[in-house]
């Protein structure tokens, strides 16, 4: 894209640069945003008349599940979804592939659906290292958006062994993380139920406290977490450790979540789907669930190095998919629905099952309200990213619904009125009247998630940024407004026009930029691999050919690197 494009006169919202609905022009050349030409004689090759429209950076999803074996398995597990929902996302272009919808759309459909609602970057939050190559293949088949993923690290048996041995731990854990991120071509690491998945895979009783011991290894979740957070910071991964903590979904888990945050004092961390970790109640009585957000929000408000995504629950059928096999087995026991549990090659686990969140179900209603509490009570929206933990809380296609709930307190009250009365006693939702402004919505859907992921060229409209831009028709019905943008530009090219997909863009996948790990640091890992793994050492790595095709993201060096430092 070498032509000069001008988006003229739109109400520009660019929170990073303090621009809030100001009539401005946005200029684009070679797929990037540029400063307005100083020479008034310069004319654009194309002008998009955006007067009266709202102009924002393209959306960035910090936490979703759109690739890898767990998504494929969910499609196999749930053919009934494909029977109900057939066909293609609205598109006026033939990209020579088709697909299916449901809560886990196929790769092509995923790209179309995201782009169709103005999202241009997605991050899969949990790829098993052994499935990294497949994930890259699938992401490459996910058009119209740029991509990245985090790889799972908190239950790798090699990590547990070196922590157990206790020799040169910092150095060895750092080498392990470098290797993991290098071999997978990922942006960083996710830690799911640290030590808990390994314990579950052993067939042992669940561990639930930060200082419980992982059988066979004698290390605690606290040790695992601290070591990985330190290594992540030392390496300068663009995104801090992405944490799915212990006791997900269990009543009373807020105490563990708070203790975890205190344990990581001073270390940057991202709390994933924090809504699922913010409950009071009796751990032995699922029906006792209530929101317990106060203390946790205060901790986050006081600690700018912490970020969260919410994992909002919205009502309707969807699919649970998690690396946390222990939680999936627990849920499966409660719901008695079909369930996939997988033990994944010395590294992690997996659970997939259908679920339906019902507005008349008190537990589900409390989850809905707990998520909204997080959005409405966190003081700094830069610390919050909008997510449904797609597809766990709801499909990403429900984001417009969630944005409407945040921006329109009247609509929120109407929704609340349909829920069981007791939800008002178990949560603080009825006392919250805050309404998100368009600028705040732009922060939690674009600017903040881009900053959290270290994607300095995303989430803003400053010179040098990727020209990923969404242009909305203002509408008092926010669901309609955010579901169908008038235009979407990807890398400066119009991919959505008049709400239809009009062009095919393959998009790129990001990885962390680091030098190849040296052979000496890899040797202990290689020896371990050859003794324990059932594939060749070489096949553990995505390979230089694929790696070289990925776009690199520079290390975070001195503290938080600001989006916009391009």
């Amino acid at each position, binding site marked *: 894209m070498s032509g000069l494009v001008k988006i003229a006169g739109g109400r520009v919202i660019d929170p990073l640069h303090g621009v809030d609905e100001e009539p401005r022009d946005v200029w684009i050349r070679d797929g990037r945003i540029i400063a307005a030409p100083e020479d008034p004689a310069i004319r654009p090759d194309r002008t998009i008349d955006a007067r009266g429209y709202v102009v924002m950076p393209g959306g960035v999803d910090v936490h979703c599940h759109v690739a890898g074996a767990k998504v494929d398995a969910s*499609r*196999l597990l749930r053919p*009934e979804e494909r029977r109900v929902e*057939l066909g293609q996302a609205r598109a006026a272009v033939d990209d020579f592939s*088709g697909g*299916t919808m449901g809560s886990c759309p196929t790769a092509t459909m995923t790209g179309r659906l995201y782009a169709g609602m103005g999202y241009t970057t997605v991050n899969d939050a949990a790829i098993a290292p052994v499935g*990294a190559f497949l994930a890259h293949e699938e992401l490459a088949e996910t058009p119209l958006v740029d991509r990245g993923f985090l790889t799972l690290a908190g239950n790798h048996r090699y990590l547990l062994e070196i922590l157990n041995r206790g020799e040169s731990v910092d150095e060895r854990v750092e080498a392990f993380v470098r290797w993991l991120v290098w071999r997978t071509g990922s942006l960083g690491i996710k830690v799911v139920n640290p030590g808990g998945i390994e314990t579950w895979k052993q067939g042992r009783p669940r561990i639930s406290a930060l200082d419980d011991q992982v059988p066979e290894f004698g290390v605690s979740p606290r040790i695992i977490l601290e070591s990985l957070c330190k290594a992540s910071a030392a390496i300068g991964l663009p995104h801090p450790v992405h944490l799915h903590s212990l006791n997900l979904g269990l009543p009373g888990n807020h105490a563990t979540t708070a203790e975890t945050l205190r344990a990581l004092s001073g270390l940057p961390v991202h709390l994933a789907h924090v809504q699922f970790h913010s409950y009071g109640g009796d751990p032995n009585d699922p029906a006792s669930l209530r929101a317990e957000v106060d203390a946790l929000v205060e901790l986050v408000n006081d600690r700018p190095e912490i970020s969260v995504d919410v994992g909002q629950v919205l009502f309707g059928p969807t699919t649970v998919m998690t690396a946390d096999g222990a939680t999936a087995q627990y849920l499966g026991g409660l719901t008695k629905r*079909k369930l996939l549990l997988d033990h994944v*090659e010395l590294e992690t686990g997996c659970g997939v099952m259908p679920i339906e969140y019902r507005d008349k179900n008190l537990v589900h209603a409390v989850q809905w309200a707990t998520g909204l509490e997080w959005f409405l009570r966190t003081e700094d929206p830069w610390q919050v990213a909008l997510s449904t933990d797609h597809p766990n809380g709801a499909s990403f296609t429900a984001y417009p619904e969630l944005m409407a709930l945040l921006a329109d307190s009247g609509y929120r009250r109407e929704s609340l009125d349909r829920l069981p009365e007791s939800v008002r006693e178990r949560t603080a939702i009825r006392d919250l009247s805050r309404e998100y402004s368009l600028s705040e919505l732009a922060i939690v859907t674009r600017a903040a998630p881009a900053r959290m992921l270290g994607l300095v060229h995303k989430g803003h409209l400053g010179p040098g940024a990727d020209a990923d831009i969404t242009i909305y028709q203002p509408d008092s019905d926010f669901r309609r407004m955010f579901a169908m943008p008038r235009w979407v530009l990807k890398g400066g090219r119009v991919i959505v026009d008049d709400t239809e997909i009009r062009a095919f863009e393959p998009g790129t996948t990001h990885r962390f930029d680091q030098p190849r790990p040296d052979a000496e640091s890899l040797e202990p890992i290689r020896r371990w691999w050859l003794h324990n793994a059932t*594939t060749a050492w070489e096949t553990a790595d995505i390979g230089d050919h694929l790696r070289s095709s990925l776009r690199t993201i520079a290390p975070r060096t001195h503290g938080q690197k600001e989006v916009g430092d391009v």
Partner: protein
Amino acid sequence: MTTGEDSSSGMTASSIHPGAVPVCVGCGCLCHDLELLSGAPDFRNCELARNFMRRAGSGNSRTQDDSNDRMAMAARQLRDALHFGRSIALVGLEHTAWEVQKAAIALAEDLGAWVVRESEFQEGGSPWAASFAQKGCTTASWGEIRLRSDAIVLWYAPLWHTHPRWMERFGPVSSRAHRLAVVAPGSSIAPDGWIEDQMLRVDPGQANAYLRAVRDSLKDASQESPDASVRRFVHTVRNSHWLAIVRGDDPPGLAEAFGVAESFADLVAEANSTGDRRVVSTHVPSEINAAGLDALLSIRAGLSTPMRFTADGPARALGEWSADKADFVVSFFTGLSENDIPAGIRFVAADAADSFGVDSNSGRTISIPVGISGLGATGTLIRGDGVVVPVRNVRKTSDPDLLSILIKLRKALRAKGESNAAESGDANARFGAEAAQ
């Protein structure tokens, strides 16, 4: 077709796919420690592969070039046979190595045949896919099984899977005591008899009754089965903390295949329900491309037709299948038999079993070698346990021949989908047309 060789590993790698992961041409096992001498195939570390390659009867080893030649010969035989058909359907392409797809699609194009996927043909996918979709499963990759299991049951394991070499995959890496029980169809024996004393027999046609008896005994300890084999199976489950059931492909002609798959899923689920033991099941295919492999891949690639469900679950009979209009069906590695095909339709099965060991074709079966580097439609090979092995992405090939074949595949799928849609107006059929766009 020629093949190159990876001199470092001594294993074959396709010259069309330089850099692809070498795969053992003996069984496609992906073992990474084999040594194959160039020009004179000799699997130094694998007695199994040697035997496998020599099973032609002549005692001569087979090379990959041999297999390519044999495939070409088989393709010619197929082409000749198909001249008898006026309206031809090629079924089951998701189950083949790509070289076979290439030949089959070329045939389809030459003959104007329809390309029909097995999942459409069977209307509900395979019994195991249907069982998975109904009930889910608890599974594990091979590394997990090798590490954790204190007992392994092989269910319908192909004979070579009971060979010591193959079983090394599950060999202990720790001091855990491994016990082994094998459940096999009545007439099967292990190739060397090395585990024959541990083999539990299931009479032909009794697999489902056998599984039900095991489940009953597990649920109620007071219900001890009169069948010693069942008692031993139950004893193995009860005395294991971490049990792996490794399942091979169903034997041909298995009665109540859907019932067996469902009973098997129930058995695993119920065995896990006590909470004091872990029971996992995993599938080990007898071919390179597992039944589920391309189902997974094609679903994400969008080429798969959704399974058809009724109020009672997946439909199991031929229904609106487009090839009902066909007068000649060619099955590629589908497990379909003549009995599955409506009367009046000619049938040829291209069967991969014993692909290196068959010199001549018998009856209506034409054998096509599959001991060739296999890869899915989008270029990722998934081992039977779900572990991903990167290979080359066919869809992004620069090979002009392969590109040509892929274009033909797309056209054939589109034509088939449009034909279905026009004839039936059915939602699934319309989807087929869209999916092929």
